């Protein structure tokens, strides 16, 4: 192998030194279930293919830093924009609307609200 791998994807880890793997089952958060359902529906409808999702995921700059459902959802975002099914402006507007929905007094200090404020 050369010192500087050419065109080696971030997913192609075989043979590299591995750190500890967190094998704890964290379950699925509510948004993860929703995002997963959306991906499943779009796949079954033939709108996105698993190969396209992999290609989009492996092209993400943040691939190694994102959690699993963040990767798949980011990949879905790339494909929907690419295929012209949504626009960046529409996504931004919808996300802003949803953030406002969470912006209510919250004595429990919802982690969702804290994250949205960052």
């Amino acid at each position, binding site marked *: 192998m050369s010192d500087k*791998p050419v*065109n*080696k994807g971030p997913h192609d880890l*075989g043979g590299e030194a591995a750190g500890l793997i967190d094998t704890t089952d964290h379950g699925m958060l509510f948004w993860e279930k929703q995002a997963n359902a959306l991906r499943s529906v779009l796949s079954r409808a033939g709108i996105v*293919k698993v*190969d*396209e999702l*992999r*290609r989009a995921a492996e092209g993400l700059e943040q691939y190694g830093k994102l959690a699993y459902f963040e990767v798949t959802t980011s990949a879905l975002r790339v494909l929907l924009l690419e*295929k012209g099914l949504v626009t960046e402006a529409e996504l931004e507007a919808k996300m802003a609307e949803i953030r406002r929905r969470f912006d209510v007094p919250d004595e429990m200090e919802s982690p969702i609200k804290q994250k949205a404020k960052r």
Partner: protein
Amino acid sequence: MTGAGADISAMRSSYAQAPGHRFNVGDRVAVKSVFPPGHRRTPWYIRGKHGVIERICGAFPNPEELAYGFDGEPAKVLYRVRFTQKHVWPGYQGPGHDVIEMEIFEHWLEPDDRADGDAKP
């Protein structure tokens, strides 16, 4: 487990017909040592390695094309290729008969024409 009278012929198989395949079971092959851009499914660590065709899995739409929204036709023949671990991993400490098998598409393989006549991968 299925019962004694189970109709195993009705069980689904992922095999797809592969007419016109280039390699046969037992053929010695080398994985191409090339590093093109694109959606490539052949892991880096197996490129340039030598193995033997273990089975012909069938012909499947090409994932390198599917990844960019095309239909993946013409289908590509997929093989399961067997490699010895000692060959794949320099310094491998396990038994010499340990193998790794990997499914690789035909266009990533070429005949293993090493002149030394070494039958072992």
